[in-house]
Structure formats: C-alpha cells, structure tokens
C-alpha cells in the first residue's frame, strides 16, 4: 500500500492503473445529484499551499469534501508562513491536529518529501518547484485514457518550456510508464541538458509534430521572456505555437492550464473538438479523490491511538 504520493517515479504501472480505475468509479459518484461518499468521514485533510493555485487547490478541496473528510486549507499569504515560520515548524504545528493527509504545493523541489519526513500524515505532492506534479500527470493519463481507451504505444509530444515545468517532468515519467513514446520539444534554451535520461526523445522544432498522436502543450510563462530564454514572444509563437495548421485532424491536444491564448496555443485549437483541456479539469476532482482513497482508505488511525468510531461527531 502506498504511503505517500511524492513522485510519479514511485508509482508502478499497476499502481497507476489501480488509481485510474478508482477514479473511473468516482466519476459515477460525480454524476449523482449528491456527490458525496462517506469514505473519509472523521479524517482530516490539510491543504498547504505555498503558491497561488486555482485548479489544483480547488480540486483537492472538492475531492476531500466529496469523500466527507474534514478539510483545512492553509494558504501562505496571511498565515504563519508569512510571518517567517519555517516549513518544518508549520508542518509540526499542523501535524498536532493529527491530519490523515497533507496536500502540499511549494515553489521548492523536495518540499513534499520533507513534509513526509516531518509528519506522520500521508503526503500528497501537489507540485514541488520545477520537480514534479504527480496528480496532474495522473489526471492527464485518466483524461487521455477515457478518450482513446488504451495508452500503450501512443506517441506523445510535450511542447514548450520543459526546463521550468514540473508538469513536463511528471508527464514524461507517467506517459512512459504507461507505454507511450514521449518526445519533448522546445527552444534549446528551455530544454534541460540531460532530460533524455528520463526516457524521452528531444526535438527543437515542430517539423515532425505530425508523427504525434497527442500534443501536450506547456504553459509559457511570461516572465521567461525577460530572462532571454527566447528572444521574443513573437518568435516563440511563430516556431512553437500549436495552431490549426500544425495540429492535424487526428491529433489530440492537451494543456495543464491556464492557457495563454495566442502564445502556446492558438484560439482555434483550444476550442476544437480535439482539445481535452476542459476534460482535464473535470478529471482533476475524481483523480484526486482516487489518490486520497488510495492513501487513506483502509489506513487506520496512527498506532497507539484508539480509532475513533466513524459515527462520532467531529469537533468543529
């Protein structure tokens, strides 16, 4: 049984398939009028977000609530974090509430692993610096699988700023593990040296994009423009933007959001039937429910503490 979800690298193909299967069963719950199951009643989930996030934090909140967990959301601004408290002290403080899970988003690589060391809770990495974003990769797999059925042998191109992208790193690992052939493509200044060791091909032009079954565009952050990673947005868009001419009729399009219209994607492809972007967002909730279930269901209260009966009312 998995204890934490820190990296896609920790997951076997069987782990991934089990989580995706569970997500599919939660999708059925999401279709009901009352979208709630009692699975995690009486358990506490803490969302600890050190970075602004809309879709990841809200989908984790919804996922926890639909599993009937008690949820505490801590955002860095206005909290003790803002007052200079160290990550370790914050985690130890929050751990005093005996959470079953801590979901952490941090601008720093390895933060989730540190939380796992400092707390008894199950820890879910909701993005650690430019390192990994495993639940994004899982929801991408789930979304794609729903659309195409089998992932094995699919050719996936990940296009854009690979250097600064945790989505790219988790994506390369996850797609490869499921038997896809992954190619990353971006300006040479935005593709890290050594990335091919993760098991992907590297391209610096879109010339062979036609060979892809799936085009996964990464968000191009505007602040990268000032670092002279690319000479101009114009040149970037001219060479790497996925538009109606470049995206073939049989190719699928994915993007982790939020999209910069007119930069990495042209409007016509965002709104095309090939785009899975909205489905990716929808998948976020059920996949995160499945991850919480995977880590917490069946895992009792910590050793030495009597398990609380599920019927006992929880303090507010």
């Amino acid at each position, binding site marked *: 049984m998995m204890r934490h979800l820190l990296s896609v690298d920790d997951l076997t193909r069987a782990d991934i398939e089990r989580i995706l299967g569970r997500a599919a069963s939660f999708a059925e719950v999401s279709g009901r009028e009352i979208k709630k199951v009692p699975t995690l009643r009486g358990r506490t989930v803490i969302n600890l977000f050190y970075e602004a996030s809309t879709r990841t934090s809200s989908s984790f909140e919804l996922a926890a609530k639909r599993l009937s967990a008690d949820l505490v959301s801590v955002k860095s601004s206005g909290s003790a974090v803002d007052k200079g408290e*160290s990550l370790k002290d914050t985690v130890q403080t929050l751990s005093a509430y005996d959470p079953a899970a801590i979901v952490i988003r941090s601008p*720093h*690589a*390895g933060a989730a692993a*540190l939380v796992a060391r400092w707390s008894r809770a199950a820890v879910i990495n909701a993005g650690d610096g430019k390192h990994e974003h495993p639940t994004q990769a899982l929801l991408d797999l789930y979304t794609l699988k729903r659309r195409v059925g089998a992932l094995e042998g699919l050719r996936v191109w990940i296009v854009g700023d690979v250097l600064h992208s945790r989505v790219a790193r988790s994506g390369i690992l996850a797609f490869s593990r499921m038997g896809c052939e992954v190619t990353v493509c971006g300006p040479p200044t935005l593709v*890290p040296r050594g990335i091919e*060791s993760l098991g992907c091909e590297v391209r610096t032009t879109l010339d062979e994009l036609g060979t892809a079954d799936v085009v996964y565009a990464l968000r191009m952050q505007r602040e990268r423009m000032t670092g002279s990673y690319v000479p101009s947005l114009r040149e970037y868009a001219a060479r790497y933007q996925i538009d109606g001419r470049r995206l073939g009729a049989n190719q699928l399009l994915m993007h982790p959001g939020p999209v910069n219209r007119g930069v990495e994607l042209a409007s016509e492809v965002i709104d095309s039937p090939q785009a899975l972007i909205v489905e990716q967002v929808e998948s976020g909730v059920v996949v995160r429910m499945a991850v919480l279930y995977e880590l917490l269901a069946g895992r009792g209260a910590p050793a030495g503490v009597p398990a609380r009966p599920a019927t006992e009312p929880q303090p507010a």
Partner: protein
Amino acid sequence: MNRVDASGRREVELDRAPVRPATVLIRGARLLDRRAGLDGRADLLIRDGQIAELGDSLAAPEGAETIDAEGLHAFPGFVDPHVHLRTPGREDEEDLDSGTRAAAAGGYCAILAQPNTEPVVDSAPVLRSLRERARAEARIPSGFLAAITVGQRGERLTEMAELADAGAVGFTDDGLPVRSAGVMRQALQYQRLAGRPLALHEEDPSLSGDGVMHEGEVSALLGLAGIPSVSESVLAARDCSLAAYEGGRIHVQHVSARETIEVIERAKAAGTQVTCEATPHHLVLTDDAVRGLDTNLKMNPPLRGESDRAALIEALRSGAIDCVATDHAPHAREEKEQPFELAPMGVTGLETAFAALHTELVLPGLIDLRVLVERMTAGGGLFGLPLPRIEVGAPANLCLADLDAEWEVGESGYESRSANCAFAGRRLTGRVRITIAAGAVAYRERTFALGAVA
C-alpha cells in the same frame, strides 16, 4: 622595506593558544612519510615538542608519556588550506576553538581560514583582532587569508600590502569569484607588492545563475537549476591567462570539474604559477547522491558527474591537483533543514576527510595511501608554510590513525559546532586517534585506551 619576494614564500606565522610542549614516546607505529623517505615500523620520541629520536626500542625519558601505537599508522600532520571558521560573526556555527578542535580530530596540525566572515577580513584591524583571538582560542596553529576586494564586492582591492604585513597568509574572495577581469588583473599586479598567493573561487555567475546543483541528468530529473561545469572552467581559464600574463601566482580552490583540471594542466605545462586543491566530497561523491535532496550534499561548487570525479582522482594521483582541502563550511541546523533550493551551500568535512578518502579511494585501490598522505599534508606549502615532516629535529606535527577502525559518521557528536557533514550516515574505515600539532597534543580520541606508563 622591500616587500617584493620573488619566491612568494616568505615566512608565515600561524597563531594558536599557549600550549605545553609534549614529551611523548610513541611505540611501534608504522611511520609513513614519503617526503622524508619513511615507511616502516619504529619508535618515535617527541621531546619538548620536537621530534627528538626515531629508532627501535627507544627508552622513555623521565616524565614522558608513552603511547602504545602498535597497529597504528603515524602520518605527518595534515594541513588544510581551506576552512571556514565563521568567526567573527557566526560563532553559533563555528568558533576558533570548536573549528580547530574539529581540525585536530581529523588529524590536522594546521589550517588556513577563509575571510568571508561578518565582517569580512578585509582590513588590518579585523585581521589583527582575529589573530589575537586565535592566540587565545585556537587549538592548532591557524592562519588567516584576507579578502582580495573590499567587502568581497569585487570592486576595489583591499590594502593587500598592509594586510600581508599584518600576517595575511594569502588573499581570496572565496565564496564569490572576482567577477571583473580588470580587478583580477590589478590584484595580480599588486601581488608583486603584497606577495602571498591569490586563492580563487572560480565560477562565472552568468553561467551558474540561480543553480543549486551540477547541471546534468540528475538536475534534469529533479527540476533543479543547474550549475554547468563550464561555469568553473571558463573563469579558471581566464585567471590562468591573467596569471601567466602578469607573472602572478594563483591557487585554484575546490576544483570540481574535469574541464577545469584540463585548463590547469595546460597552464601548469606552460609554466604558469598555478596550484589547486580538491575536496574529499568532490573526490568521493557525485551528483547521483543528490537525488534524495539531502541538503548536507549541497555545496558550491556542486557534486559533479562520475567522469568529473574520475578525473579528480586521476589528477590527485598525478599531482595535477596539489592538495586536498576540505572547504569545511559549517551551517546552523535550521538553515539546512529547509527545501534544497533554500538551504545554504556548504558542508563540514574536517573530521571525516581522511577517513572518507581512505575508505573510498585508498581501500578500493584508486590511490596509494602514501600519495594521499602527501596530498593531505601539502596544502600549507602552497602558501609558504613549512611542510610537516617526520624527521629528527622537526617540530612534531603528526597524527596517529587506526586504518582498521570502522565507524559510522553520526548525525551529531562532532567537535565542530555544526553537523552538516557530507558523509553523515556513512560507514567509514580509518580513524584518527591522536593528533600532535606543532609539538603539543591537540587531540586524543576519547575512547582511545592509552598504554600510559608512569
């Protein structure tokens, strides 16, 4: 007064607290000193701090302590030209007492401290007060380097001549490169007046950027900003060119990359006065160890790839790398208990240097023990200090080590005030039992059973 010194090897004075000169008879150790042509079992008598006699079955003079060193090796004391004692300013991390105790525990009989303190050692009054403190607190002879530029800001030279007169052993902006080639050239020109080597931290900040580890496959996997090898080698190449042009003398600190070794080998072959050092952590570990994001493996320059490590070992063997230096850099626990990207650069290493190199280089046959000992004792000579020798008439600078002792480097239990050791948690073979520095016993391992004879 003519300060110009063609050899660059003026007498350098080190400082330490007052000691009682030892009179000790060491029985039965295997004496190993390649410079003195020594490799064999003998008794060694230290009288009033000097090596008085070498031979078989020496008699202990009255009042002498006898140490039964059967099964132990005696080496010339190690000399570390690159240590951060954090004093003045961060005595919570290290002070002159704890730092020199850590050095003695590692078998060191002398160390040279870096000037990147708070305040920076960039004026004679700061240097004088530090030396005065060393004369009260330092357990082994300690020398101090002064900054090349005021505040280590890379803009204006320090009063190098006055600092040299006040006892600066050398000059360095360690921790930072001298960014401007023009300022570096001026420092080399001014060296003709001040004497003393310039010790250089070679790193081009425009290439290392906000990097936190070696640029390579591991940084790509971890999503950490990388410091490319060429960040070091391009600045080393610049400074070798400048040193050759000005006839200056430079010492390249903590060489980490294969490319830098190539630069230095070429410069040496061309007759440039350049020496260099490598650290135990760069000789033993690679970026592969950083996968777990242990902040005790974060330092600058970073742990590099296996081909870099192999090149460092080969260069240490050949002498292209002149000496081992620890770059002992203590940091407070709370500073290291952070995500990798936020933690400060630097690891401690005085207490584990010999054991780590013995375990990882000597035992697997990568380097000969005698060569390792020579490189560990050579660092002071590059700054004009006499080389420690095991020979009659020399001041007693030596350490006794048990090469069979196995121990685990702990999370705590250091003589140093800090515990950010790169080798924490590793099992090492070889342990320093006793260190005698400039004629006085500076360290005894606490569990060492002395064969004391009344």
